[in-house]
C-alpha cells in the first residue's frame, strides 16, 4: 500500500470516526439521565482525532526514518570483513545494493546477491509492518475515542486544547524558520571558514572560486576574497537607491499632500503594479533593453561602458523598489498629525514649505526606516543582478563597468551539479550568512525606527 493510499484511507477513517462518534453521543445522551458535557459534534471530533492522529504521526515518523534504519540494518548483513570498511565505503556499498535491488538482475557475486535478497525482504517486511501498525493504531484509537463518549468526558475542552496547541505550533513555525536559516547557514559557513580564514574572506580582493573544482588540482584551491562582491553589491544597491528614494519619496509626497482623490485612486495602484512584476521580468528587461540602451548612449558620449554595466542593473532595481519607498513613506506622512500642518499654514507657510520644513523633519525617522528596508531589498535582490550584472569579480566603483554581487555568486556557485561539501558550495553558504546578517541588521534597525516613530504620534 503506497503512502498516499494509506493517507487517503486514514482520512476515510477520520470521517467515519466523526460520524460514528456523533451518532453514538446522541444515542448515549438519549439513554442517559445525565446530560452529556458537550455538543455531539465535539464527541465526533474526539473520536475522529483519536482514530487518525496517532496513526498519522506513526506513519510520518516511520516514513521519515525508514530508509536510514533499513540501510543500517543492511550493513549488518554484510560479512564481518566487509563491515570493517570505512563509513563512506559502507554507504557506497549500501547504495549499490539499493540500485541493484531495483534492477532485479541476477548477480554473479553471491555475497551481494544474498544481501540484495535480504534487503528486498526487509523493505517488504517494513512496508507490511508499517501498514499493519498504522491501521491497528487507527482502530485502537477509534475504540478509545468511542469509549470516551460518556457524560463526564469534557469533549469540547479536550478538542479545544488540541486546537490551541496546534495554533501555538503554527505560530512557532516562524521562529523555527529563523532558527533553521541560522543553523543551516552558520553550519555550512563554519565548515567553509575552516579552510579559508574570515579575514581573507572579508578583506581579500581576489575572488575566483572556479579554481577549486577538485582537490590537489594544479592552480591551487581557488581564492575566496569576497571584497569585490561586497563592493559590487553596494554599488548596484546605491544606484538603485539613488533612483528609488527621490522618485518614491516625491511620489508619496505628491500623492498624500497634493493629489486629488481621483488621481490618487489611479496612480497608487499603478505604482503598486511595479512591485507585483516578477523580478525575473525586470532582469530580462534590464539585460535585453536597458543594458544595450546604456551601452549605445555611453558610446555616443565617447565612453566605453561594459555590456553588463552596473548602471543598467541598478536603474532597473531602483524602479523595482520605488513602490516600497513610496508606500512606506505614504503611510508615514499620513501619520503626521494634521495639527502640525495647520500650525504651519497658520504661520503663512506655503504647502511646499510646510512639507519641507515641518512634515519631512517630523517624518524623518520613519522615512529613514523605509529607506533602510528598501536598501535591504536591494541588497538581497537576486534575479535582476543574475540576469543583468556581470559574473566576474571586479573591484571598481565605476558604474559603467561590470561588477558582480553576492547574490549572483550564490546562484552561480549553487546551480548545477556540485558535491555538497566542496569549498565552492560552502563558499555560497558563507556568502549567504553575510547576506542574512546584513539584511537582518537593516531590517531590525528599520522596524525599530518605524515603530518608535509610530509610538511618538500615537
Amino acid at each position, binding site marked *: 500500500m503506497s503512502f498516499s493510499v494509506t493517507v487517503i484511507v486514514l482520512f476515510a477513517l477520520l470521517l467515519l470516526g466523526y460520524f460514528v462518534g456523533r451518532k453514538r453521543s446522541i444515542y448515549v445522551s438519549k439513554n442517559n439521565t445525565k446530560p452529556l458535557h458537550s455538543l455531539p459534534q465535539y464527541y465526533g471530533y474526539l473520536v475522529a482525532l483519536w482514530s487518525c492522529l496517532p496513526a498519522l504521526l506513526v506513519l510520518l515518523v516511520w516514513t521519515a526514518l525508514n530508509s536510514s534504519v533499513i540501510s543500517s540494518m543492511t550493513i549488518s548483513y554484510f560479512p564481518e570483513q566487509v563491515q570493517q570498511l570505512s563509513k563512506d565505503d559502507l554507504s557506497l556499498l549500501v547504495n549499490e545494493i539499493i540500485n541493484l535491488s531495483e534492477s532485479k538482475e541476477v548477480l554473479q557475486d553471491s555475497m551481494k546477491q544474498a544481501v540484495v535478497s535480504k534487503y528486498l525482504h526487509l523493505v517488504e517486511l517494513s512496508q507490511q509492518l508499517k501498514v499493519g501498525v498504522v491501521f491497528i493504531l487507527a482502530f485502537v484509537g477509534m475504540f478509545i475515542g468511542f469509549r470516551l463518549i460518556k457524560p463526564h468526558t469534557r469533549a469540547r475542552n479536550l478538542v479545544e486544547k488540541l486546537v490551541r496547541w496546534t495554533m501555538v505550533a503554527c*505560530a512557532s513555525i*516562524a521562529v523555527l524558520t529563523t532558527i533553521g536559516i541560522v543553523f*543551516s*547557514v552558520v553550519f555550512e559557513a563554519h565548515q567553509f571558514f575552516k579552510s579559508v580564514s574570515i579575514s581573507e574572506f572579508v578583506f581579500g580582493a581576489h575572488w575566483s572560486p572556479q579554481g577549486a573544482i577538485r582537490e590537489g588540482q594544479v592552480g591551487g584551491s581557488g581564492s575566496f576574497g569576497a571584497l569585490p562582491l561586497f563592493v559590487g553589491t553596494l554599488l548596484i544597491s546605491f544606484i538603485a537607491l539613488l533612483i528609488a528614494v527621490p522618485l518614491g519619496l516625491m511620489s508619496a509626497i505628491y500623492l498624500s499632500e497634493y493629489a486629488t482623490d481621483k488621481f490618487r485612486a489611479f496612480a497608487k495602484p499603478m505604482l503598486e503594479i511595479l512591485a507585483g*512584476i516578477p523580478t525575473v521580468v525586470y532582469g530580462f*528587461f534590464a539585460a535585453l533593453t536597458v543594458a544595450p540602451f546604456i551601452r549605445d548612449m555611453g558610446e555616443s558620449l565617447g565612453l566605453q561602458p561594459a555590456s553588463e554595466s552596473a548602471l543598467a542593473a541598478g536603474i532597473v532595481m531602483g524602479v523595482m523598489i520605488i513602490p516600497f519607498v513610496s508606500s512606506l513613506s505614504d503611510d508615514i506622512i499620513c501619520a503626521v498629525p494634521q495639527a502640525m500642518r495647520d500650525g504651519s499654514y497658520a504661520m503663512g507657510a506655503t504647502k*511646499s514649505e510646510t512639507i519641507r520644513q515641518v512634515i519631512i523633519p517630523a517624518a524623518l525617522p520613519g522615512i529613514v526606516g523605509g529607506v533602510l528596508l528598501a536598501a535591504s*531589498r536591494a541588497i538581497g535582490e537576486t534575479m535582476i543582478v543574475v540576469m543583468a550584472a556581470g559574473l566576474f569579480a571586479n573591484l571598481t566603483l565605476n558604474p559603467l563597468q561590470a561588477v558582480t554581487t553576492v547574490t549572483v555568486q550564490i546562484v552561480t556557485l*549553487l546551480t548545477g551539479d556540485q558535491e555538497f561539501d566542496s569549498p565552492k558550495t560552502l563558499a555560497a553558504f558563507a556568502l*549567504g550568512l553575510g547576506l542574512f546578517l546584513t539584511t537582518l541588521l537593516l531590517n531590525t534597525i528599520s522596524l525599530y525606527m518605524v515603530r518608535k516613530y509610530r509610538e511618538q504620534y500615537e
Partner: protein
Amino acid sequence: MQKSAMINNEIIRKRLAKRYAKERRFRLYGVASITISIAFLLTLLVNISLNGLPAFQQTYINLEVNLDEDILGVTSSSNDKEFLQGNYSKAIKSSLKTLFPNVKGRKNNKALKQLVSSSATYQIRDFVMDNPNMIGTTQSFWFLAKDDIDVFIKGGIDRSLPETDRRIKDLQLIWIDQLLFDQRLEKRFNFTFFTQSDSREPEQAGIKGAVVGSLLVMLVTMLLSFPIGVLAAVYLEEFAPQNNKWVDMIEININNLAAVPSIVFGLLGLAVFIGLFGVPRSVPLVGGLVLTLMTLPTIIITTRAALKAVPYSIREAALALGASRVQMAFHHVVPAAMPGILTGTIIGMAQALGETAPLLMIGMVAFVANVPQGIADPSTVLPVQIYLWSDSPERAFIERTYAAIMVLIGFLVMMNFIAVIMRRIFEKKF
C-alpha cells in the same frame, strides 16, 4: 514712511512670487516622479507585448510526402518496433527534393533539410502508425518550420545583410521565396507553445511543463501556507497572552522574515529539506515547502490585519452567548474576516508564483522535457523557464521568453483581479 512701506511691499511681492514659483516647482517634481515611474511601467509592458506577440504565431511548411514502402522501410503489416525504426527523414528529404530538384552537393542538401523542424519525422511516424493503410499514398502535411525560417518570415532577419552575417543562407532565401510563392509557407497560431514542454529546438518548445509545474508548486504552497498562516495569525491576534516574551519574539520574527531576501529561503531549503530530510531535488514538493516558508509572513501579517478590523463587539456578543474562546474565534471572527484573509492569501500566492531565486537554489533549473505528473516528479516552473530561455542565444527563444513573460503576467493580473473583486463583493463594513 509711505516710501519704505512701498519698498517693503515690493520686497514682499517679489519674495512671494519666488515662494510661489518654488511651490509650483515642488509640485512639478511630484508629478514628474509619478510620471517617470508610470512611464517606465508602460515602457516595460509595451516592450514585452511587442516582442512577445510574434511568438504566438508559428510558421508552418506544407509538403507532399510520398509514404512509399521502400523509402520508409515499413509496410502496413509492420509491428510497432519496426514502425519506430522506419526512415521517415528520408521521406521528407525526397519530398523536398521533388520541390527543389536542382539542389546538388552535401552541404546544400543539408541546408535544404534545415528548412523543416526535426519534429517532422515524428509527425510522419505518428501518422503512419495511426493509419498504416495510408502507406504507399502521397499525403500533404503541414510541418513546423525550423526556428531560423520562422524568425525570417516574421521579419527578424535582414535579407540585405551579407550571407556570412545572416542565419539564413542565400540558397535558403531562394527556396523560401519559392515556397512563399507556392503558398506552402503559412503563419498559424502557435499551439505548440501551449501544448509542449521545454525542448532544445526553439520551434518545438512550449510552456506546458512549466505551467503544470507552477500549478503543482502553488498547490503545495497553498495547502500548507493557508491553514498554517491563518492558525498562526488567529493565535497571535486572539489567544496569545499580552506582554509575553515568547509571543513578542514570534512577532519580531515574523516581521523580520517578511524582509529576508528570498534567496536565503532557497539556501534553507537546500540545506534542510534536501540536505537533511533527503527530499529529492527539482520536485514541486520541495519548491512548495520553500515557498510556503516564504509566503507565511505575508499571509500571517495580512490575516492579522483582517482580524483586527473585526469589531470587538462581535467577540463580546459571542462570549456573552456562552461561546468558548475557540468557538468565538472560529465561528464568528474568522468568517467575518475571511474576505481580507483570502485577499491576503491570493496576494501571497501571486508573490510565490513570480518567485525565481529560491527555486534556482533547490535545483528547479534542470532541463525538463516532460510534463510533471505529480509533486514528486522533476519539474520546472514558469519564472525559471523564463530565466532558462533568456540565456539561450537563439532568437526564437528570446521571442518565446517574452511570450512566456506575457503568460506569467497574465496569471498574476488574473490573481490580483480576483483579489480586488473579492474585496469589493465580500467586504463587510462594520
